[in-house]
C-alpha cells in the first residue's frame, strides 16, 4: 500500500552531526558490509576490480567547502571551512518515493516510520529515485530492484544481537560519534533533546518532504583575527592586509587610478 500512514507510532531516524564528522567513510563501508548480507538482495558492484568500478551504496559521504561572503582574509588564509556530509535515506514523513510507487513495493511503516522497499514487488521502474531529492535510492543493477537505507531494521529489533549492537550499523561504527539513532517523535528522547540543543535542521525543507532525519550544524568558530597574536592584531587594523613597500605603492596607485576611471565613465 503506497498511501502514507496519517501518523506513525514512532519516528525512528538518524541525527548527523556535521561538526563532528571527520569524513572517514567508515559508516559507508559498515553500511555496505551489513546490508549486502542482510535485508533483501545483496548490494552489487559492477566491475569492482575493472577500469570503471561502480556499485550500489545506501550511505555516501559528500565533502563541501563553505566560504563566508564577508569572511576575513589574512595573507593566504580565508575563513573557508570544510564540512563532511554523510547522506542516506531521511525516512521522510511526507515521502514522495512511497506515493509514486506503482506496484506497492515502496511503503512507510506505521509502527516506526521506517521507509522500506519490498523487493519481491519492485519492478525496477526507478520513479521513486526520481522523486527523491536526496539521492537516497539507488537501483541495484544486478538484482534490478531499488535499494535504500532500511535503518538496519534487521539489527534494531534483533534479539540475537547484544543490546549495544541493536542500532544501525553506521551509528555503531562511527569512530567520531557523529551519528545518533533514536525516536525523533518522542520529545523526551536523548536524540530529540540533542536536536533541540544544537539547532538541528531539515535538508531542503522547501521540497516539502518533512524529513525525519536531522542534521546538526557545524559549531561557530572564533574569527581569524581572534586567532592572531595580540600585538599583531592591534597593528593590523585592516584585517585584509595589503602588500608593503613598492608593491604597496603599486596597489595604492592602481586602486586610485581605477576609481578615477570608474568615476569618469559614470
Amino acid at each position, binding site marked *: *500500500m*503506497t*498511501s502514507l500512514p496519517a501518523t506513525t507510532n514512532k519516528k525512528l531516524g538518524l541525527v548527523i552531526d*556535521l561538526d563532528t564528522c571527520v569524513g572517514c567513510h567508515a559508516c*559507508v563501508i559498515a553500511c555496505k558490509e551489513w546490508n549486502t548480507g542482510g535485508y533483501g538482495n545483496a548490494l552489487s558492484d559492477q566491475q569492482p576490480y575493472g577500469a570503471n568500478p*561502480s*556499485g*550500489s*551504496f545506501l550511505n*555516501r559521504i*559528500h*565533502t*563541501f*567547502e*563553505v*566560504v*563566508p*561572503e564577508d*569572511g576575513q582574509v589574512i595573507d593566504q588564509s580565508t*575563513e573557508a571551512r*570544510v*564540512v563532511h*556530509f554523510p547522506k542516506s535515506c531521511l525516512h521522510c514523513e511526507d515521502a*514522495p518515493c*512511497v*506515493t*509514486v*510507487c*506503482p*506496484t506497492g*513495493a515502496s511503503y512507510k511503516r506505521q509502527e516506526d516510520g521506517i521507509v522500506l522497499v519490498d523487493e*519481491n*514487488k*519492485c*519492478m*525496477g*521502474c*526507478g*520513479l521513486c*529515485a*526520481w*522523486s*527523491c*531529492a*536526496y*539521492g537516497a535510492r*539507488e*537501483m541495484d*543493477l544486478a538484482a*534490478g*530492484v531499488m535499494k535504500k537505507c532500511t535503518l538496519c531494521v534487521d539489527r534494531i529489533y534483533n534479539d540475537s544481537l547484544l543490546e549495544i549492537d541493536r542500532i544501525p550499523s553506521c551509528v555503531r561504527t562511527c569512530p567520531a560519534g557523529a551519528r545518533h539513532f533514536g525516536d525523533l517523535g518522542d520529545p523526551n528522547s536523548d536524540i530529540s533533546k540533542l536536536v533541540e540543543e544544537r539547532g538541528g*535542521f*531539515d*535538508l*531542503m525543507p*522547501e*521540497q*516539502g518532504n518533512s524529513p525525519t532525519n536531522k542534521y546538526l*550544524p*557545524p559549531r561557530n568558530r572564533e574569527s581569524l583575527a581572534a586567532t592572531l597574536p595580540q600585538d599583531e592584531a592591534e597593528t593590523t587594523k585592516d584585517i585584509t592586509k595589503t602588500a608593503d613597500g613598492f608593491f604597496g605603492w603599486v596597489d595604492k596607485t592602481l586602486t586610485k587610478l581605477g576609481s578615477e576611471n570608474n568615476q569618469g565613465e559614470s
Partner: protein
Amino acid sequence: MHPAYSVIVFTTFSGTGYGLAALLGLGFIDPSMMSVKAGYFLALALISIGLLSSTLHLANPKNAIRAFSQWRSSWLSREGVLAILTYVPITILAFLSIFMDSSIGWLGIVAAVLAMLTVFSTSMIYGSLRTISLWNTWLTPASYLAFSIASGAVVLNVLVAVFEGNSGNIPQYALLVLVAAWLIKWFWNRRQSEGYGKSSMETATGLGHLGKVRLLERPHMMANYLTREMGFRVARKHASMLWNITIVLALIIPAVSLALAFAMQGSMTAVLLSVIAALCHLIGMLVERWLFFAKAKHAVSLYYGDEALDAA
C-alpha cells in the same frame, strides 16, 4: 535527466495514438471511410508500440503486472489502469468502423475522454515531481495534452489525404491545434531558467548561513546510478541548437506544409505536403521529447556540485 529511448518512444507514440483515437472517436469523419478504418488501426498500433516500449526500461519487468495496483496514490499506476481501460472503447469502435461501417456516438466520447485522461496521467508522472522544477508545473500536462491532439490531427490529416485523395479543410484545423500546442510549449520552455526552483546547494546542505557552498569532493571517484540517471548533460550543451531543430521540424515545416495543403486542397501536391507535415512533425516531436528529459535538472545534482558539472 537521462533520456531513456524507451520512454521517449512511449510518450510520443502513445501520445499521438491517443490523440488520433480521440479525434476519430469524436466522430468528425464518417466511420465508413477508409481513412477512419486505417486511423483506428494506426491508433491502436501506436498505443501498443508505445506501451510495450515503456516496459523496456524496467529493471525487473516480471513484477510489471503489480503496477495496476496503486492507482490511489501513483500517477504511473493510474496511467497503466487507464491505458488498459481505454483499449475497450477504442477496440469496439475500431471493430464497428472496420467491419460494420458504423460508430456509436457516446462510446466515441467515452474513448476520447479516456484517451485524454491517459495522456494526462502520463504527463502527471513528470509534472508531479517536486524534485524537477522544470517539469513541476501545470504547463507540463497542458503541453502533453495539446501535443497529443496536435500530433493526432496531423496524422489524421495525412490519412484522409492519402486514402481519400483530398483532406479538405482538415489541414486548417490541424494547423490551428499545432500552433496552439506550441504556444503552450513556448510558455513551458520559458521556465527553464528557473533551474532548481527554490532549492540550491545552500538549502541542500543547510550550510547557507555559513556562506557560499561548493562541492570539494564527491563521495567516490566514478559515476553511480544517481549521476548516470539524474546528471545527464549531453543535451544541455547543445540545448539551444536542438530546440531550434525541434521548432523547424515539429512546427515550421508542418505549419507551412499544412497551410499550403489547405490552399491547394484536392491536388496531388496537397497530399504530398500532408505527408511531409506528418513525417517532419513526428521526427521533431521525438527530439522535443528527448529535450524534455535531457534538459531537466534534478535536485540531487546539487549534492554532486551542479555548477562544476555544467562547466565541464
